[in-house]
């Protein structure tokens, strides 16, 4: 009869209480895994952007401000700018899906010059350039939806009063999942003209690749100076800063999420500690018997702590598993927001989750364990005698 076996039998002694405790730990850690996964997604996006020599030019008023299409050529003509394209968010729905994947109106001639890390077969790129209703998309979208070159994709405009009828000209590969589709900016603009839409000839934002990272500050200053006295002054920033801007929008949420996580662990440790204390109170005489027949304090301490940690770890495996499954689902459904697969998370997130579970077990078990270890044998035996 080994100690671990005894611990396991004790866990099964009151199965409903153990199960409820395991589930409460599990669901809380699943919530934490998802919340921290959301933070990790933001970090991944920001870190990826920091590695590229790209800048984003937008109206100084932000996304609501116009940026005329003529600005693109002016950006291109700026010294050290290697390539630049308009980049307008379309945000259309596909069949019943409100947000199926990201869609951007851009310049097919230069888009792969701005993102040279993306690769596409030359004949497909050529087809994209020559077909006004052509589009290219991330291979992951194509594989997920079973789409191939030549398939048609109708997208219903949500922001704009114009529906797209696109044909897949090519499929590109990218190091990270972009979950994006690119189509002709001209196609959108012509369509908006036909609808007499007031805000035409708008580039949305401009993405530009700079020849070297050293030149980026000078380029940003040069562009913003150039447009400073125009009707549409700009605010240019690195792609990393652009990503940071999004992160800053939810900055307080990040602090909130971290604090909620801490609060969850703390309150959970109280719940688990109460559960362990109840279990120990029911077993006072039993512990006294063990000590009477010679079990040392250290072993009693180990048995109680072991039981608390085992319950917590079972909840930890359950919670991290559920959280990872949820994030994997988010990665499949909305990869633009969760740009990593569960396989990429396995190492750190399982470690963090299980460490949190172990710490939870130790915190919740330490007081009942010390009380059990220090309990007087005589008092314990008297409890039932």
């Amino acid at each position: 009869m080994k100690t671990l076996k005894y611990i396991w039998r004790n866990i099964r002694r009151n199965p409903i209480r153990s199960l409820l405790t395991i589930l409460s730990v599990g669901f809380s850690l699943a919530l934490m895994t998802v919340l921290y996964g959301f933070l990790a997604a933001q970090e991944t996006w920001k870190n990826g952007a920091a590695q590229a020599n790209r800048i984003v030019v937008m109206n100084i008023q932000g996304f609501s401000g116009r940026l005329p299409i003529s600005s693109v050529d002016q950006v291109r003509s700026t010294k050290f700018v290697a390539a630049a394209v308009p980049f307008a968010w379309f945000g259309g729905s596909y069949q019943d899906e409100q947000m199926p994947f990201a869609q951007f109106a851009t310049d097919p001639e230069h888009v792969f010059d701005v993102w040279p890390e993306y690769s596409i077969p030359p004949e497909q790129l050529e087809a994209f350039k020559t077909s006004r209703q052509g589009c290219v998309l991330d291979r992951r979208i194509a594989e997920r939806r079973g789409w191939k070159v030549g398939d048609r994709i109708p997208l219903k405009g949500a922001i704009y009063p114009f529906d797209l009828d696109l044909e897949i000209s090519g499929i590109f590969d990218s190091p990270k999942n972009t979950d994006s589709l690119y189509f002709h900016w001209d196609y959108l603009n012509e369509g908006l003209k036909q609808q007499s839409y007031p805000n035409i000839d708008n580039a949305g934002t401009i993405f530009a690749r700079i020849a070297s990272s050293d030149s980026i500050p000078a380029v940003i200053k040069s562009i913003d100076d150039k447009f400073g006295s125009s009707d549409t002054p700009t605010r240019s920033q690195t792609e990393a800063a652009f990503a940071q801007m999004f992160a800053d929008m939810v900055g307080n949420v990040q602090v909130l999420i971290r604090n909620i996580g801490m609060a969850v662990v703390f309150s959970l440790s109280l719940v688990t500690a109460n559960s362990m204390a109840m279990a120990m109170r029911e077993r006072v005489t039993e512990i006294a018997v063990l000590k009477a027949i010679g079990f040392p304090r250290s072993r009693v301490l180990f048995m109680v702590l072991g039981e608390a940690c085992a319950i917590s770890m079972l909840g930890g495996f359950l919670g991290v598993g559920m959280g990872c499954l949820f994030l994997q689902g988010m990665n499949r459904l909305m990869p633009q927001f969760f740009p990593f697969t569960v396989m990429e998370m396995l190492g750190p997130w399982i470690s963090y989750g299980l460490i949190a579970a172990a710490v939870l077990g130790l915190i919740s078990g330490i007081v009942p364990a010390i009380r059990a270890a220090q309990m007087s044998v005589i008092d314990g035996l008297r409890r039932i005698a």
Partner: protein
Amino acid sequence: MSNSNAGETVVVVRDVCKEFYRDQLTIPVLSGINLQLSEGDYLALMGPSGSGKTTLLNLIAGLDRPTSGDVIVCGQNLGQSSEGELARWRSRHVGFIFQMYNLIPVLTAYENVELPLTLTSMSRRQRDDHVKAALEVVALQDRMDHYPRQLSGGQEQRVAIARAIVTDPTLLVADEPTGDLDAKSAAEILELMHRLNTEFRKTIVMVTHDPNAADRARRILHLEKGLLVSEIANNRAKVAVP
């Protein structure tokens, strides 16, 4: 104190006093107790509730320490031992039999009996041999896989006795071992304890209110208000189930 048996001295209780403290009150429980037991002795402690029987039993078993005086059992002065030393000592020298059996409900009869052996360095096979031998002594080898809830009260107490003897201790202490049993089961338990005393030369100290149980002992001590008031050398100690 008389020594009814010619064996080696196992228990020496010398001028022992025990006081408890409750809410700044000092409660004397035992006063000036002297007692000596030899190997193979069988002592019954009797007296009204609150007379100090169980306290004296706890002192002899190394579960508690005297306020003054000496308790020397199997050569160890228990009053001078640390709690850790007492725990190790108990695991080697004392077997416990409780009124409510106090088996671990999540362990089988076999595992309950094996429990004290997990504190030793015995191999699995050695433990197995000892457990089966102990269960054979109490005639429960066929119930070794049963959980306590699957046993009768008498069988549970027999498993508890097997757990008490499995380490082959010098001393067995029993606190009202028949107090929760019917007459038939109680007689079986008393007969078993008698066998342990006569065949296996176990020294037994038993607290009891039951004159029939006390009648099995070789010596009967009466306590009253913490004092030893009388001792009877029980030459009529029964050797068979009545």
